[in-house]
């Protein structure tokens, strides 16, 4: 039998399927959600999460893990609501410095062969501290332009969907279709062979960390565009959400096996799970628990499909 799907496509089937099922369930429970405004409300908060998930996915491409994602996005949100709003030039300089810091961290991790978990753990304190210094109490104000972008109403599709598709397509082209992306995934798969082929691994690590910082900064800015104000703890959940999003989307911790489209779908699924639970009128006590259960069910589905696929290819 001829193989119909490429492995990359199969990787995407489960995330796409679970998102569809969840969406159908939400529409069944709340038919009014099946509208322009409804969809926008459902997926609004997914945009920053999707961006943070892509950032985490980039780090995971080179077999590292970023435990500072949540505090970093919070820090960016604080900068956006204060400096970027009041004196845009200074704000941009601060954010560029943050990108440079990420690149330096990537180089350090590589040079000293340090565990990324611990270094980013330390950085999470640093970003958290900076955020507290900038905004000791919740406040600040979103810049007009980002507010305008996030609340704009493009024809046919709501902004949240348009943004998610743009993020997915752009990161797919970057990671899966460009030669830069191939080198990055190669570093995750077999760093030594990439090095022998004449590529600089240090440069790849620095680039991947800087790029992750860039996406995380977009996440922070988008978040402020939605909430209009910031707080030092605004995005702490993003660390775990982004990791879960990558895994739900078919990515893996090692080997450079990632899927940008899957990661965006994973982020959408996680966001939708929250709305689904509130439509079900589950007691708030069990909301987090039910989110955990949804995570487990989707992963069980993936296992079943993988087994099925393995059996078919063996035949």
């Amino acid at each position, binding site marked *: 039998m001829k193989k119909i799907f490429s492995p990359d496509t199969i990787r995407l089937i489960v995330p796409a399927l679970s998102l569809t099922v969840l969406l159908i369930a939400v529409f069944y429970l709340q038919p009014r959600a099946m509208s322009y405004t409804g969809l926008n409300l459902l997926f609004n908060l997914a945009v920053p999460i999707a961006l943070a998930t892509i950032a985490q996915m980039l780090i995971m491409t080179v077999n590292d893990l970023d*435990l500072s994602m949540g505090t970093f996005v919070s820090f960016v949100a604080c900068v956006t609501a204060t400096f970027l709003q009041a004196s845009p030039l200074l704000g941009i300089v601060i954010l560029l410095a943050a990108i440079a810091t990420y690149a330096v961290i990537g180089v*350090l991790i590589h040079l*000293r*062969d*340090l*565990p990324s*978990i*611990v*270094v980013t*753990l*330390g*950085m*999470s*304190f*640093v*970003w*958290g*501290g*900076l*955020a*507290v*210094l900038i905004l*000791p109490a919740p406040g600040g104000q979103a810049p007009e332009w980002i507010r305008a972008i996030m609340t704009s109403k493009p024809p046919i599709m709501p902004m949240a969907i348009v943004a998610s598709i743009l993020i997915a397509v752009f990161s797919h082209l970057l990671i899966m279709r460009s030669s830069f992306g191939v080198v990055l995934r190669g570093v995750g798969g077999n760093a030594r062979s990439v090095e022998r082929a004449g590529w600089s691994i240090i440069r790849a690590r620095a680039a991947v960390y800087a790029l992750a910082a860039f996406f995380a900064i977009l996440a922070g800015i988008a978040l402020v565009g939605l909430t209009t104000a910031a707080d030092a703890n605004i995005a702490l959940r993003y660390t*775990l959400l982004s*990791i*879960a999003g990558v*895994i739900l989307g078919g990515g*893996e*911790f*090692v080997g450079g096996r990632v899927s940008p489209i899957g990661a965006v779908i994973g982020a959408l699924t996680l966001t939708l799970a929250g709305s689904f639970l509130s439509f079900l009128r589950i*007691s708030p*006590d*069990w*909301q*987090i*628990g*039910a*989110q*955990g*259960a949804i*995570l*487990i069910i989707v*992963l*069980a589905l993936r*296992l079943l499909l993988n087994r099925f696929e393995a059996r078919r290819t063996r035949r």
Partner: protein
Amino acid sequence: MTALMRKPWIWSFIATALVFLTTILVTGGASMAGLAQATLTFAAFSVIVGIGQMLVITLGPGNIDLSVPATMTLAGTVALKLMGVEDGMVVPGLLVAIGIGVLIGTGNYALIKLLRIPPIIATLSMSFVVQSTAIWTNRGLRIKPPPVLADFTTSTTAGIPNVAIIALILSAIVWVLLQKTVYGRWIAAIGQSIRAARMAGIPIDGVRFVTYVLCAIVASICGYLLASFSGGAALNMGSEYLLMSIAVVVIGGTAVAGGDSNVPGIWGASLFMFLVVSMLNTYGFGAGVRLILTGLIIIAVIMLAGGRTAGKR
């Protein structure tokens, strides 16, 4: 001396001594005994969760238990509720806490094994479920611990806090387990190469299962003690111990890549982490600066000590 310098845990103790001295310099030695006692007490809680996390991390790359905070909260909440401020119920309370640990550990490993999902996601999903259960049992009530238990956890024996003594006993047990028993050799072997361990006929599933259960049990015991120490269980009482348990393990010189554990280092790192915070408090820094310096110090320590231990890939 050179043999001592080669031990990976020595760095955390040197750092601890330095921080202790700098703090004493400011206070002029006035609060030395008080500082030492407070440090031992608070470090004890990090040590207890740290040794559990260390066992799991020793199992090799990817092994980590994120359900530690939720486990602590649930065990503390349920045990305190069961004891209902009665002195006679102290032992049953402890047993129930341990039972909760066994259940959560079993659940964790069942998810890892049956669903073949990475431990980080399995324990994360598990912690969501456990946290919800804790919210549901707690209902915002703050139940006081039995007086005997509250006294025990907050008082000292011969100048040493009782919780530190318990942490010491637990670490001694784990140290013996790791150094002198075949189980200890097995988890080190699995951490170094799971394939080689499988070829050598080591019961991998059994060992990993026991390790995750052990980690959950010590987390439960810690939750039980912490809830009694702080006069009641709170829903967020475990949250700071998620990052703390990982940080003390790694700063203590346990290889993040697995296969090499280090009990003394956990003590050094736990004392160090608490002292850093109290030193920064003594100097009168605000919350923001304190956080930044804590982070930079963690990174500095791992740069000095970690390069070697993480050498193998």
